[in-house]
């Protein structure tokens, strides 16, 4: 397992930034489960975004499609009672779920890390006020609020609404983690050194603090993706998420719950895709956490 070439990377001071990136990449590639997950995840993304362009059916109703055909050559994932191609529906559903999840991850990690970084950097009353706000938002069960808000845009709710709502209510965890990280990093000597040579606050935050918290932020973002996929699916499942004729994985499952034994293809394919996305994202997050952890070295001491 252990690459003999690794120590040379560790002892190479020149080109530190590139070296660091390559080191992380090497560590990640050693994590076989994470690499396999990344491959599967990329395949799922391709399936969701390139699939609909290549496949002959779309997710909508078509009169030519036979009702309730089990999986076969013509319809690999079978068809619904009304006459949809389930493969096309799952592609579309996965696409919508991924779009929601990625938007939520960007929004929530963006807000959360800036919030946490500012609070941790300035400390004092700014920190107190900002973290009290986090406490307050934490107290409100965010899925209930999301459900209530998306109920408001009834009829007109799209994947984007869902994504924004989930993003706006789900950033507090990241804020706490990033703040804790910033609090410990800002006490270190290189920050003091930067201050001594007269670097501005903004420069210190963006040039020194943020890069040093990237690991935590990236891991938080991957977790956010998995949470968002499950949250969106749950909302759509109870009818407060994405609305027909559009579709999402949660919506597909919700219209197929009673079919688990009689027409399993309607129930299992969307479910398997949710599990696949969450599973791979979690494993990738795990691999990244190990790869970005500076305490882990490739050399056995």
């Amino acid at each position, binding site marked *: 397992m252990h690459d003999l070439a690794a120590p040379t990377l560790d002892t190479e001071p020149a080109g530190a930034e590139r070296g660091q990136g390559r080191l992380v990449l090497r560590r990640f590639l050693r994590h076989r489960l994470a690499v396999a997950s990344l491959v599967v995840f990329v395949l799922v993304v391709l399936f969701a975004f390139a699939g609909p362009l290549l496949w002959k059916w779309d997710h909508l109703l078509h009169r030519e499609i036979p009702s309730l055909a089990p999986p076969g050559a013509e319809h690999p994932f079978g068809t619904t009672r009304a006459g949809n191609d389930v493969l096309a529906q799952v592609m579309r559903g996965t696409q919508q779920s991924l779009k929601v999840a990625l938007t939520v991850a960007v929004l929530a990690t963006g807000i959360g890390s800036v919030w946490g970084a500012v609070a941790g950097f300035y400390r004092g009353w700014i920190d107190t006020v900002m973290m009290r706000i986090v406490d307050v938002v934490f107290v409100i*069960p965010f899925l209930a609020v999301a459900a209530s808000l998306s109920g408001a845009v009834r009829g007109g709710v799209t994947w984007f609404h869902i994504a924004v709502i989930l993003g706006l209510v789900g950033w507090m965890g990241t804020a706490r983690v990033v703040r804790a990280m910033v609090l410990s990093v800002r006490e270190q000597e290189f920050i003091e050194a930067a201050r001594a040579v007269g670097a501005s606050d903004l420069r210190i935050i963006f040039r020194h603090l943020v890069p040093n918290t990237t690991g935590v932020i990236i891991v938080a973002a991957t977790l956010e993706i998995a949470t968002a996929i499950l949250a969106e*699916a749950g909302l759509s499942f109870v009818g407060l998420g994405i609305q027909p004729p559009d579709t999402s994985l949660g919506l597909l499952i*919700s219209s197929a*719950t009673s079919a*688990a034994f009689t027409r399993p293809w309607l*129930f299992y394919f969307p479910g398997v895709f949710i*599990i696949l996305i969450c599973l791979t994202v*979690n494993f990738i997050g795990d691999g990244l956490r190990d790869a970005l952890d500076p305490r882990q070295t490739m050399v056995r001491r």
Partner: protein
Amino acid sequence: MYAYVARRLLLAIPILITASMLAFTLVDLSGDPIADLILRLQQSTADGSVPQATIDAERERLYLDRSMPERYWLWLTGIGGNGDIGLLQGEWGPSVRAENHDIGGEIGSRFLVTFRLVLIAVFMAIGLAIVTGVISAVRQYRKTDYVLTFVGFLALAMPTFWLAALIKETGIWVNKRVGSTLFYTIGATSPDTRDLSFAENAGDVAGHLILPTLALMLTGYAAASRYQRSAMLDVLNSDYIRLARAKGLRNGVVMRRHALRTALIPIATFAPLAIAGAFSGVVIVEFIFNWRGLGTYLLESIVNNDSYAVMGWLVLAGTLVVCANLVADLLYAALDPRIRYA
């Protein structure tokens, strides 16, 4: 210790009030409660017109004629209302559903049904997580560990509603196969329980609990098992365990008396938070098993745009989160002698 509890509770008050303000604003943004009512009235009359007086009366009954801040003040204190509003006076506010719909009574009666399910599911999930987490840690990087870790990750990746629906359908399938109702799949109790004795009643409740508990366990188990594994690993790699082994203690004694006792502290403090967390999972589980619990009440209230009912639910859930956090911290102090609150 008492001073600490008192301080924490006092600190919780402003947090809860601000949170309720925020929630009230969000719920208020989420639509006009009487829009549906007007629509229904329009459909019931022949020419589709609704007398303005009816609408105005309804707006007044729901205090919608007042401004939002004023309504929040009313909702919280009830000062200036008609005696049917004001949380601090124990009144949860009028419902848009019907004049005699008692939000407080409804929440009160449903709370026990839901809490029973949540409590049993979380404790069973944590019990199972302790067993698998400890086994996983003791057998680290062996086959057992890999299998259990994978199961944990799978549980983390599985949507509650998918598993719940699968469990329900499996129950129905078994019932059909056996030809009798082996598993109850609908409701928290049988529809008519008046003629049952106490023991029969308890059996009926327990029977209805089995499948939903199984479904709800998933949420708690996934996180708890990973947590327990890392806690046990931390302990097993610590110096005092090495010392215990060096003294020549038998493995069983080291594990039970030294390692396990310490490794259980983190999970004990995790339990209250898991209970609070399970309240969002329970919404889905109740929806699938057709329970008349708090979860389905929230969904019905959202669909009906019953803002005071949604607010009541949110306040209850928020209070639970605050209490759960406090209990978790107190448990931590009670179990870990290194931690003292002054």
